[in-house]
């Protein structure tokens, strides 16, 4: 799966699943509360029914006033009677805290029902009935809701994946088409570019040519094409390419690549300030190092002013290249590191340079820093 497709799919799934989850969670919460009240109501109904039975029994006792008066008790319920001043008369329990203002209330795992009696049989103005709250129906409800949420989550994730793939299909096709195009172009570029470059070299060595300036221009254009070819090949083969890691003299390679870019530098009359420490070695594949340096230098030249300035500094563990130019807006710095993204379209290119730099830095665990802002010099720092 392409990284941009993956990113789009993840974004879609996050939004889709997030909003669906919030909606489901809300619905489940409302349903749970509704059912909880139903369960509570049914248990409160039992309390109410029991209280009616007790009142009936108290009425009988009051009328008969037999000695002794046997208080009606049921092992499943607790009950107590209180006089008009809320003083305890008798009962199977005597709770310390009673909420006299409420008809039904819950305290811990106990449910209470306070019935206001009228007339006051046996002097009882209040009858308090209590039973332990039966948690089993509530636990069963929670279990059912959790299972429902898991089931719905799995189903919706699968649906989301299917929909996401369906929505990203056109984008995938476009990118695949672009990749195929680049692949074909790369393949077709290889032979002519190599032929031009080798022939220029031959002409330069074997013949005294009159049109030196024109030859330089051809060489410059060919080198640009050559670099483009190398970049595209890198992107195409990056993950499958067998790297030959070796101890590389980065100082020499940097000087070599600066010389390779000479034609471009001269064309723009850029002043290059070098501060390259000798014999800085690095464990790296040569081609990767060339791609890394060429792309940084190419950007520094391409986006520089005419007669601008480039500073190249190499020390142990750090390469720093600073170039003049319009700079990059701070908010664009992250964006341009993506493939085919460019902050400035005034210059030619595909917008793959920084992507290549980023990929190489990531592969070798280098730290890549790009410091810039509008109308400020751009500083690219690679540290290892």
């Amino acid at each position, binding site marked *: 799966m392409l990284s941009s497709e993956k990113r789009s799919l993840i974004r879609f799934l996050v939004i889709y699943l997030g909003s669906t989850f919030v909606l489901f969670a809300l619905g489940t919460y409302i349903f749970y509360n509704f059912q909880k009240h139903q369960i509570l109501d049914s248990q409160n109904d039992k309390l109410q029914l029991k209280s009616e039975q007790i009142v009936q029994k108290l009425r009988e006792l*009051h009328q008969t*006033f037999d*000695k*002794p*008066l*046997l*208080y*009606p*008790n049921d092992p499943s319920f607790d009950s107590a009677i209180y*006089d*008009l*001043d809320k*003083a305890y*008369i*008798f009962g*199977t329990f005597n709770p310390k805290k009673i909420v006299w203002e409420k008809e039904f209330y819950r305290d811990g795992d106990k449910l209470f029902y306070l019935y206001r009696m009228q*007339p*006051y*049989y*046996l*002097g*009882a*103005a209040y009858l308090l009935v209590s039973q332990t709250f039966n948690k089993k129906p509530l636990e069963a409800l929670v279990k059912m809701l959790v299972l429902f949420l898991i089931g719905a989550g799995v189903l919706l994730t699968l649906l989301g994946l299917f929909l996401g793939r369906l929505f990203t299909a056109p984008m995938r096709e476009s990118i695949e088409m672009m990749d195929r195009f680049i692949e074909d172009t790369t393949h077709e570029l290889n032979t002519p570019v190599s032929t031009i470059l080798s022939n220029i070299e031959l002409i330069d060595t074997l013949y005294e040519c009159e049109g030196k300036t024109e030859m330089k221009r051809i060489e410059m254009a060919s080198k640009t094409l050559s670099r483009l070819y190398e970049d595209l090949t890198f992107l195409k083969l990056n993950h499958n390419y067998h790297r030959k890691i070796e101890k590389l003299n980065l100082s020499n390679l940097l000087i070599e690549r600066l010389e390779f870019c000479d034609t471009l530098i001269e064309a723009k009359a850029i002043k290059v300030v070098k501060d390259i420490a000798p014999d800085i070695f690095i464990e790296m594949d040569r081609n990767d190092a060339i791609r890394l340096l060429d792309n940084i230098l190419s950007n520094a030249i391409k986006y520089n002013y005419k007669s601008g300035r480039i500073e190249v500094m190499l020390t142990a563990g750090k390469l720093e290249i600073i170039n003049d130019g319009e700079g990059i807006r701070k908010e664009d710095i992250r964006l341009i590191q993506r493939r085919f993204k460019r902050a400035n379209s005034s210059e030619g290119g595909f917008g793959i340079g920084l992507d290549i730099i980023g990929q190489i830095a990531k592969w070798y665990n280098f730290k890549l820093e790009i410091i810039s802002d509008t109308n400020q010099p751009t500083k690219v720092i690679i540290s290892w």
Partner: protein
Amino acid sequence: MVNRLLLLLLFTTLAQSKEPPSLVQQNCLECHSRQKIPSELIYRRYLMKLSTHERIAKYLFAYLKNPKIENSIMPKQFFLKFPQKKALDLNDTVLKESIEAYLDYFDVRKKLQLRDK
């Protein structure tokens, strides 16, 4: 179990054979018994209407100080069958003590029991 039943029987018998306090006997029940006025029924009526010991005591005191049909808690028909009471010749302290003794004698709290499981 048998022992518990025997004990319960003994206590019940003792409670039933419990004599009313002399103050109640002398100031209340003597006359009530003679005229066959049901004291327990009156107590139940008070209990059903007023609920608390303090309220009953207050109401009884007021009635006994001024015993008229309209001041009584009993229905009017009650007085068709039983004679209207005359005011007692007792000072307030003795009257209050008698009322307390009467209410204590009939107190429902002492009569209520849990069924033996």
